[in-house]
Structure formats: C-alpha cells, structure tokens
C-alpha cells in the first residue's frame, strides 16, 4: 500500500490534510460527517485500515473527540475533523484534552454561522471559538493554511506541536482552502521532522505524570506500558490526583500557559511579503491571504507600497510579528471573512503607531483582490 518516491498530485485541501496526517503518523480517526470537512473522514475511512490504523464514525462530535483522546492516551496519534456545529459540540472535550494534556488534532473546516448557518459557504468566523470556545483559562494552538501545500505541512506541524507540547492543536481551514485544488509534490524521501511524545525513562514508581519540568511539558506514559497513573478533567496535582489546594492549582494552570508561551518562536509561523518598505501592510490568513497577495502585487505595480503579513499560526497570536509591521507601516488593513475577530487582536496590540482598518465580509463569499485594492485606495 505504501506509495514510493516522488509524486505530483492535484489535491484538495482536505485531501492534503489527510496526506499530512498520515505522514505525521496519525493512525486513529473518530468523527461525524459534516460539510465541508466530510472528505477527510471519507478518505481516512479508506486509508487508515490500509496502514493498520482505525477509522470509526461515532454517534456525534462529543463522542468523536472523546474517542480521539482515549486513543491518544493508549498511545496512538489521533485526530478528528468537523465544522462549526460539530466544533461547538467538541468544546467540552477540547477542554478535557487541555487539562489532561492529551495530544490530539482537531480540524475545523470553517463555514458560515452561527448555528447551522451556511453549510456549503466559506467563512473565517470560528477564530475566537478556537481560542475561547471551551470554558476556563487555557492555552490553545491553532494553525491556518492558505495553500494546499500548507494544508499538508501545517497538519504535520499540528501533530508535532500536539505531541511536543501535550496540547490539542486545531487546524482552522476555511471552506475555500478545504475544497480548492492545487498541485502538490509529495515525496517519501523528503526530510520532514516528525515529533513523537517524550516518554518517561524512570522506573514506574518514580514517574510523576504531571511533573513541573523546566520545559513545562511532563513525559507522557501510554496506557498499558506499566506506568499506572490517573488522568482526570479535575484540576490535579503533579501526581494526577484531584486537588483544591491553592498552592497546587496555581502552578498547574500557570505551567499550562508557560509550556506554550515559552515556545512562541517554535509555534508561530507566518510570512512577511514585501513588508520592509511597506507604507500599508495587510494582515491576512487562510484563503484571504491569497487574495491579499494578489492585491499586493497589483498595488506595487501601480507604485503603491503595500506589504502582507500572512498568519499561519492564529493562536497563540503572533504579537511580535504584528507589532513589527505596526511599527513600520503607517496603515494596517485586516481583511477577514468575519466581523473582525483578528482585527480586534491587532487593535489590542497596537500602541498607536499605525492606523488599523478592517475589511469584513460575511455574505458567504471570498474577499477578492479588487475589494482589497479598493480598501487600500479608500484608507490611504
């Protein structure tokens, strides 16, 4: 079944996510069908059994993420894929994966909302749900591809980050990127870093499952390997047992944040495109980064100095990179297919050096290069 060598393929975003997941070592998928994420489930139902993996269609999205977490605890890299309505149902167990520090990957193919909303039309309106959808203070990692190659690469990164930092990782892919097709070259020989969870090396009686290490990420034993320990959604002490002691709660919650915050340079991925001398910088992500790039090229041809910062990492918010363009540009434009979820973050970190303008579209259609060019004209 293993395909050898270099392959040139015309893949859909969802298909590239599947290829990336398999390459990363994903061997378990549990999900519930929903547009525009269904192709991921369909394809994995074919591919996973071929590699001795497991695909299961659960009774709903709550059960899907629960099964994914269970499989990961038993030692198998696991994922699920859904869209807004299912992502809402997953929030409960997303929090469980955070507090119990269980690696897993969740794809949210974004369609218009709220509620059933626009099943087949694109949107980028789950940005804040990915950040704060589950209750309680918690860190989260969310990645956003804008090309088919990025669907592949960022899915591998998503698994790597989840294993490395023991945190769930969300892939926010908008419907446009999920369904569009582009050429992609895949190769078995390509040198791609695959990260696997660090396992304990101490004897079981010395194992402290939620130990506060300098890196903030404790070693993870899989069920059945002789390290019997307790996993719970209750706030726990370093041994994994429930606690209500302030002196144990505080360092635990802070460690969860620290393990992400001290690794921003590893997690935050983005691209500066012609921003060095840009008078106007566009900050975009997902399919809109594609329109924005076109707009930048066109504007430059007309002599307007425009640049683009593409965010591939949505959470943790790429503050340092955004601050950089806030300092070097006079004007910032944030085009997005929502009412201003990322522009709000940009405004939050802006210290007044630049003027931040929004460009919001919520009619289920993509923001075109022309619309971005028009906005550039308007605000410059």
């Amino acid at each position: 079944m293993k395909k050898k060598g270099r392959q040139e393929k015309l893949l859909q975003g969802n298909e590239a996510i599947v290829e990336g997941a398999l390459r990363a070592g994903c061997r378990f998928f549990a999900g519930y069908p929903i547009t525009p994420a269904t192709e991921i489930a369909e394809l994995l139902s074919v591919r996973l059994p071929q590699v001795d993996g497991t695909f299961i269609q659960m009774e709903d999205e709550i059960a899907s993420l629960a099964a994914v977490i269970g499989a990961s605890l038993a030692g198998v890299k696991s994922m699920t894929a859904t869209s807004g309505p299912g992502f809402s149902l997953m929030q409960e167990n997303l929090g469980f994966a955070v507090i119990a520090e269980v690696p897993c990957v969740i794809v949210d193919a974004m369609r218009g909302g709220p509620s059933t909303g626009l099943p087949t039309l694109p949107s980028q309106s789950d940005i804040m749900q990915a950040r704060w959808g589950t209750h309680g203070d918690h860190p989260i990692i969310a990645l956003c591809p804008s090309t088919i190659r990025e669907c592949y690469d960022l899915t591998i990164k998503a698994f790597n980050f989840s294993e490395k930092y023991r945190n769930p990782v969300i892939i926010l892919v908008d419907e446009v990127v999920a369904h569009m097709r582009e050429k992609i070259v895949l190769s078995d020989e390509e040198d791609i870093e695959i990260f696997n969870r660090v396992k304990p090396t101490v004897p079981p009686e010395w194992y402290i499952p939620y130990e506060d290490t300098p890196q903030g990420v404790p070693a993870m034993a899989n069920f059945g390997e002789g390290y019997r320990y307790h996993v719970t959604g209750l706030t726990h002490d370093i041994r994994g047992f429930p606690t209500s002691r302030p002196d144990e709660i505080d360092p635990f919650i802070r460690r969860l944040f620290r393990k992400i915050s001290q690794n921003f340079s590893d997690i935050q991925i983005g691209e500066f495109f012609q921003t060095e001398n840009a008078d106007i910088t566009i900050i975009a992500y997902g399919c809109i980064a594609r329109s924005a790039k076109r707009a930048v090229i066109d504007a430059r041809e007309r002599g307007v100095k425009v640049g683009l910062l593409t965010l591939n990492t949505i959470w943790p918010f790429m503050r340092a990179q955004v601050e950089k363009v806030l300092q070097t540009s006079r004007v910032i434009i944030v085009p997005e297919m929502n009412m201003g979820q990322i522009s709000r973050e940009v405004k939050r970190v802006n210290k007044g050096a630049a003027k931040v303008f929004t460009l919001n579209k919520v009619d289920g259609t993509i923001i075109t290069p022309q619309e971005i060019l028009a906005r550039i004209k308007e605000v410059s």
Partner: protein
Amino acid sequence: MVEVTKLIHKYLRHDKKFPHVWCPGCGIGIMLGALVRAIDRVGYSKDEIVMVSGIGCTGRLPVYVDFNTLHTTHGRALAFGTGVKLANPNLKVIVVMGDGDAVAIGGNHFIHAARRNIDITAIILNNSVYGMTGGQFSPTTPYGMKTTTTVYSNVEQAFKISELAVTAGAVFVARGTVYHAKLLDGLMEKAFLKVGFSVVEVISHCHTQFGRLNRMGSAVEMMQWQREHAVTVEKARQMKEKELQDKFKIGVLVDRELPVYQDEYEKVRKWSQGVVKK
C-alpha cells in the same frame, strides 16, 4: 480478613487516596469491593486494565484503584473507552458510571456502544438519583418519588437500564444489588470474561439524598428494601406476572453471541489491504 487486606494492598491506592469522598454507608464502596474481587478472580494484570469513568459519586471510583485510570467528562466515559480499546485492543477496558452518567447525558453513547458491540464492560451503579449534585431526579427515578427537583412528585417514567442495554444490542447483561454482594462478584466476573459489550447494572442506595427525601430510612433499611424487591432470574421464572409487579430481576438477563466490533474491523483492514477479497 487477611484476604481483604491483601486485596486492598494489591488493588487500591490505599496509601495515596484514602479517606474517600463517599458518605458512610454508601453502596458505591460495596460495588468497589465486588469489582476488585472479580478482577482478582479473573486474573487480569493491573497494567492491562484501563478503568474509565464519567462524573458523579460513582465517577469518583477510579481514583481509588491502582490501574490505568481515566476520569472523563459527564456521560462520555464510554466514548473515551471506545478510543482506548480500539487503539490498543489488548487493554481491558472497564467503564464505571452512575445512572445519570450512563443513561441521561450519556444515553446516546450507551446505546451506541451496545449497538457496536465493542469489547468493553460497563458497570452502572443505579441509585435512582443524581447523588453528587445533591439529589435531583435522574432517568431512573421511579414515578411518584421525591427528589430536590421533583419536590411535589416525579411525573416522569423511569428507564430500565438493563432492558435498554438488551434492546440496544449488548451481548451480556446482568443486574445485581449491593445487598447481594456475593452474586455481584460473580456477575462482574462473568461480564469481564465475556467478549463484546457487557453490562452489569448495580442497584444501590443513596440514603443521604434519595433515601432521606423519600423517608426510606438508613443505608441498612434501604438495603433491606433491595433484599425484599429483588428476585433472581431463576425464581422469577416460577412466578406470575402479577407477583413480579413491584419486583426487579437480578442475575444474568442476557448472554448471547453477536459479532464483536474489533473482529469486524479487522476484516475491514484485511479488505483494505487486499489480503482478503470482499
């Protein structure tokens, strides 16, 4: 006594987690005893057992036992257990739930786990009430009973958990009580040995909430009630419908063979790999 001490030392996190959170006289402790004795008799190693639970007084049980333990979200334990089992079929997955956990918030997961016939044993402690949150009615609270959210009287009909499990496709379904402790040991042992989805419903008492509100007396008196109302499956066969009206059956209700999920999925793997033609 020596035997009990040995089991406590072998299976409980006796030096770490005790005293426990349960009210004195609660039936959950009796069920824990039965669980440990049955596991010892079946001879599973502690490393191969994964004990999963949801939320509730019953859901607190895994923290006290020295296995791989997983205390999940309310109602979702079976879905977590499904992932564990499929990822590593060598693990013995035992899921412990309360009645609210299993058939209210987790009802959908319960019927689907049974329908799939996944190789998991579900142990459900049915105390007819939400114990942990202070005695609200549950889907198994009988009609006419008082709880903190049915202070006038419960007007809903109750689920019969075991009968629901049979209908949904479980291959082994048994009911016991915490009064009939010896019988319970045996039912659990049989359930563990059964390949496929097995269910043991354990009728218990919550004397501090349900018992108090319905003037059913102490834990001992409530266990007395269990003794008087439980009829073994064998004895029930000789009784008339009318005599059984206010009684419930205990013992093995169903023991049958149906295709087991993991075996079926193994076929899917073979088909997908072209080893066997579909």
